[in-house]
């Protein structure tokens, strides 16, 4: 598949997802899409820069007090000394996964190659988890747009787990008092003026923290730079004075994951192979929340429809039972037909 073919294929797949609900119907009833907050912070994860060292996974565990995780099949040689998490879980907020094909010899090649991908919360512009939570345990910061979780509010219904289009929130099923685990973008560190632990420790700048508006410009620079040319990749926080990672521009798939997916996300991805191969779900540009809230508001706005229906029902039922007000049966005199 040539580069162009591949892009066409991805677009086609995205369209197929978008037409799952008839577009005309769905957009007529959906509420307007949410706009990205002007001061939103985010992350650019550049899969082509990632060397799979997993320093980010380790730093995430330390920064968030999460225990190491050892899959059952590895406990023979790993007695809880190494964190070997294979996927997100109730105890892992951030994980590096690998794509492998055939001989797995060349990095960022779809055939006979391999590539890395980092998975965690993408901090949606219009998050499903915030929309579905009945007790506002999931909240989106009105300034930074970071989606955070409050275990003291949560009732554990796990609707957020089911609703997230990216499969991010994880309930800890192994704990009788389990809670939801999800990346909160190291909110506690950001409040101290620091940056998320994963971006702080990344040696190549594959995980880069910054304002989403600035990151978008950085993404544009990378996608327009000639592959193979020299490039100074910023590290840590975009705009800080850390020494950059001097390297050459990789061959990117000419698309940005997170720009349009489900209304846009504050974490964006660049990669050398198609995003779907990296396990990132192919998603429509409409956010699920805009549709479900649109339907819900159409019926329940100011409770007008239910109140009118209630008044009508009270009148109707009263009329039917008026002649026989002392009993729940309007036909006791007549008995059975």
């Amino acid at each position, binding site marked *: 598949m040539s580069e162009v073919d591949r892009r066409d294929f991805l677009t086609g797949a995205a369209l197929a997802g978008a037409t799952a609900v008839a577009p005309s119907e769905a957009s007529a009833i959906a509420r307007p899409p949410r706009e990205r907050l002007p001061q939103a912070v985010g992350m650019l994860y550049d899969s082509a820069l990632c060397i799979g060292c997993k320093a980010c996974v380790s730093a995430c565990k330390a920064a968030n007090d999460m225990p190491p995780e050892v899959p059952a099949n590895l406990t023979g040689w790993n007695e809880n000394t190494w964190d070997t998490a294979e996927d997100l879980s109730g105890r892992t907020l951030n994980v590096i996964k690998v794509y492998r094909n055939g001989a797995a010899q060349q990095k960022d090649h779809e055939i006979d190659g391999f590539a890395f991908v980092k998975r965690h919360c993408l901090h949606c512009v219009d998050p499903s988890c915030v929309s579905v939570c009945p007790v506002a345990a999931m909240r989106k910061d009105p300034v930074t747009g970071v989606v955070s979780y409050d275990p003291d509010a949560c009732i554990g219904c*796990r609707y957020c787990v089911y609703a997230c289009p990216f*499969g991010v929130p994880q309930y800890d*099923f192994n704990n009788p008092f389990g809670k939801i685990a999800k990346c909160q973008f190291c909110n506690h560190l950001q409040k101290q003026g620091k940056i998320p632990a994963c971006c702080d420790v990344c040696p190549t700048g594959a995980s880069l923290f910054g304002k989403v508006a600035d990151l978008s410009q950085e993404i544009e620079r990378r996608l327009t730079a000639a592959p193979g040319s020299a490039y100074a990749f910023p590290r840590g926080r975009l705009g800080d004075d850390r020494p950059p990672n001097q390297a050459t521009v990789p061959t990117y798939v000419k698309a940005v994951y997170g720009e349009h997916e489900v209304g846009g996300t504050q974490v964006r991805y660049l990669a050398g192979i198609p995003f779907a191969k990296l396990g990132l779900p192919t998603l429509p540009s409409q956010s699920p929340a805009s549709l479900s809230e649109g339907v819900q508001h159409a*019926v329940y706005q100011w409770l007008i429809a239910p109140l009118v229906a209630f008044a009508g029902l009270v009148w109707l039922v009263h009329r039917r039972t008026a002649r026989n007000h002392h009993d729940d049966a*309007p*036909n006791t005199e007549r008995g059975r037909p």
Partner: protein
Amino acid sequence: MSNAAPLRRNLVTPLTVVLAALTLIAFYFVALRFIYGLGAVTNLNQGYPWGIWVVIDIFIGTALGCGGFAMAILVYVFNGTVYHPLMRPALLGGVFGYTLGGLALIVDLGRYWQVYNFLLPWHWQPNSIMFEVGLCMLAYTAVVWIEFAPAILERLGWIRLKRLIERWMFVFIALGILLPLMHQSSFGTVLLAMSTKLSPLWLTVWLPLLFVVSAILMGYSVVMLEAAVVTQSFDLPSEHQLLSRLSRVVGWLTVAWLVVRWADLIGRGAADLAFAGDLKATMFWIENVLFAGGALVFLTPSGRASRRASFLAAAALLAAGALYRIDAFLVGVTPVGNWGYFPSVAEIMVTVGIISFEILLYLVVIKTFPVLESASRSGTAHA
């Protein structure tokens, strides 16, 4: 006074003993769940965080409890006063369907000790469909108890309180129609928030309508099955003549449901998925065949006249509605990542136990409280 009377029969029978045993087994697994956590007894996972405790115990269980709601529409909105003898037994089904559904919810909630947050206004999140569903179900559980209260008060002889409640009963009857219309339709809206994961065979903006109408169909089916089983096994005068009038209504309502479903499916251009030959398509067809089969029997005079055919048709519609919910919430969902789900033995035993408990309580109450009108007519023979 109503014409209903308690069915004076022995409370301890082989059936009630088996039901009680199944209930106790369920309590054992529920205890394990609270001690060791959900993961220790269920097959729930991050791809399928809701299992049969949510889909069967709550979504299907409350639909089975929709008999009172469905009959109230017929009796009070369409003035079908002839059906009134079926109201009390139908409401009784609602009392247990909703109360035990609420208990099942506590068992399933991951942070159940904080469930009261639901009621604290500073936690309210009105955009959440779950919020609307939760409050509405809680309110209806209270309403259905009040609707059934006259039967209890009559038995206790608290006639003044009964009169007081009955004076305002029209308000509760109205609420008893409005609230299930709201939350049974919202169960469908719940799925709209998962639109990226749900197969187009089920995903449509008409989900709320399809859910509430199928809940009404399930409510009628339960009323018919219950009446047939109770009159048959307790040797009471048959209510079949009355039921066969009802079955015509149910038949046409089912046809309307199928028309909406298929017109929408074809309109969205998603009908070809029904011929994909995979598990989703197979389950989709089983649902449709069950719905259509039930409707066909109810729309033919000979089908309505036959007690056996009517019984099977009601059972088919009940299975169709239950399967529609299982498919929409579990089979039709494709999670992110390679996850699968099939309920564990513990999950199945808890669900079986809850249903057994419902039937057990139902049997105990119809034998001790004035619920059945046919019982009063046969009263002299069995006194």
